[in-house]
């Protein structure tokens, strides 16, 4: 029985991957490609946030800081030292891990309560944002431009051609999901859930909770930094609010919560709903500068949080279960 069930699940996934792979051959409109790229990017970010926030229960409001560090690492290294963007991405990830460890060591070692951890991460984000706003070496408030080079995979830039970006971010996302899938199946994944369930009990049965919280945080920060580096190479120009604003952190948290916190598919389903909605609302209503798109966005958040607090993923899952039960 189990085997029969398992096969359709996999074919379903492969079907989805194939659809996404051939998508750019059929859809040529730039805007749709842009929406897809943003959706993949924020699915990646939300899934990364979820590694810490969803699996361990430590909510971070400051994940935008890793996004910004990734973006700035590529940009500054590329602009001032002509460093290859791929190398820049790796550096960005290392810088992000460095900052994460500065936050993590005192927080996890002293057993900071979730409330304080959340505010502390936000405060770190604000401090870093202000520093970058006033740091002339990295462009200050005017922002920074990525130096233009020949379009190629090695140079990690394709100027206005969106198709290669589409495939790059899609591969990152698939890579991350596969990794997270294996993590949840592994001992590490069980430990993380044990920490979320009851940290003290987890510690009592001999799990080194501190170590695993550190690991989850660094993994999470790494992926966010890689996403930030991608964003820099994709936009080719950005300023501090574009990458460090607390709204960016929120855009990682919302899909994870809406889709289903602490699940693999949740953040991706969440992003698949929130990001296109955001992009289309912005495109059709935002031009007026009215903020109607944010009002709708906010109302949607309220509706989901109040009526479906466990997220859309569970809701969909229940629908499927019901269907099967009736058969």
């Amino acid at each position, binding site marked *: 029985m189990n085997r029969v069930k398992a096969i359709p699940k996999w074919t379903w996934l492969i079907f989805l991957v194939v659809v996404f792979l051939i998508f750019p051959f059929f859809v040529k409109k730039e805007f749709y490609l842009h929406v897809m790229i943003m959706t993949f990017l924020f699915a990646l970010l939300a899934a990364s946030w979820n590694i810490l*926030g969803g699996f361990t229960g430590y*909510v971070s409001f400051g994940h935008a800081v890793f996004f910004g560090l990734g973006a700035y690492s590529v940009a500054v290294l590329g602009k001032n030292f002509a460093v290859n963007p791929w190398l820049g991405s790796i550096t960005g990830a290392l810088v992000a891990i460095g900052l994460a460890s500065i936050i993590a060591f*005192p*927080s996890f070692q*002293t*057993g*900071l*309560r*979730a*409330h*304080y951890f*959340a*505010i*502390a991460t*936000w*405060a*770190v984000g*604000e*401090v870093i944002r*202000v*520093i970058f*706003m*006033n740091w002339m070496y990295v462009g200050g408030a005017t922002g920074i431009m990525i130096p233009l080079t020949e379009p190629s995979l090695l140079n990690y830039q394709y100027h206005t051609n969106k198709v290669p970006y589409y495939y790059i971010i899609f591969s990152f996302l698939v890579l991350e999901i596969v990794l997270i899938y294996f993590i949840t199946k592994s001992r590490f994944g069980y430990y993380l859930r044990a920490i979320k369930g009851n940290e003290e009990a987890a510690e009592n049965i001999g799990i080194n909770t501190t170590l695993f919280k550190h690991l989850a945080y660094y993994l999470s920060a790494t992926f966010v930094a890689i996403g930030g580096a991608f964003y820099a190479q994709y936009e080719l120009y950005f300023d501090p609010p574009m990458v460090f604003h607390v709204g960016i952190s*929120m855009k990682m*948290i*919302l899909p994870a*919560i809406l889709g289903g*916190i602490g699940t693999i598919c949740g953040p991706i389903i969440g992003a698949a709903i929130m990001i296109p909605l955001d992009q289309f609302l912005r495109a059709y209503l935002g031009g007026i*500068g*009215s*903020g*109607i798109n*944010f*009002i709708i*966005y*906010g*109302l949607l*958040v*309220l509706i989901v*949080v*109040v009526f479906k*607090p466990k997220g859309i993923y569970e809701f969909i899952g229940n629908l499927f279960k019901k269907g099967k039960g009736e058969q």
Partner: protein
Amino acid sequence: MILQILVSGSMMGLIYALVAVGLTLIWGVMDIINFAHGDLMMLGMFVSYWAFVFFGIDPLASIPLSAIGLFLLGMLLYKLIIKRIIDAPLITALLATYGISLVLKNLALLFFGPDYRTIKNPLLEGSWRLGGLYVSVPKAIGAIISVLVIVLIYFFIKKSQTGRAIQAISMDRQAALLVGVDVGRLYTITFGIGAACTGVAGAILSNFFTISPESGSTYVLLSFVIVALGGFGSITGALSAGVLIGIAATLGGFYISPAFKFAIIFAAYLVVVMIRPEKGLFGW
């Protein structure tokens, strides 16, 4: 010079403290982190602004108006949304208030536009000279009113029947329910009072700050930090932490750079929270 900074800093700090007292009440009693706190304050500023523009009511006189308006809005928000998420995990409550914040801020943007507005020629202008000190009149009056309101709330919570009941539910909700305390009604009142604090603060700030839909954003994290330093749910803690932060911000703005004014405070908060994680500066 130092004395001047201390005086202006503590005046601003008292006004920050008022915003933070609203937050700490909601946080301490209901265990809800209100992300929309700054936006409620922004609405308070707009109440005063429109009262001034349309009816010529001075911001000082519109404080009760703004307070009552925000009190009602706070109760409405509780009945509509907060009530349903009161027992949900931390993150759910956070997102709900973040949703409220998004909606309020952008409704203001939709109806009032993104412009920065100021109230011209209010009653309170200029500054007093006390010895070698310059004391800005609107800030001084604002600080005095803030203190009065904080004292009022303090005695309301400590002495009145309702206040004692609120204290009771913040200590042990189950026990309070058992002895017949109407928890739902008290939560509504608490959220209303918390919002009313931002109404008063908004009206005060509209005297000398620019008013725009974005005006509240800075104050959210700032009040969080004050609350965390002062200890959750502690009114006196919020008062002392508010003054301290007002002074620190003014000092930092003067000696380092106005751009880093709040960044310095957030950095200081990080240090405090690492050293005394559970208690803040004043708790024990």
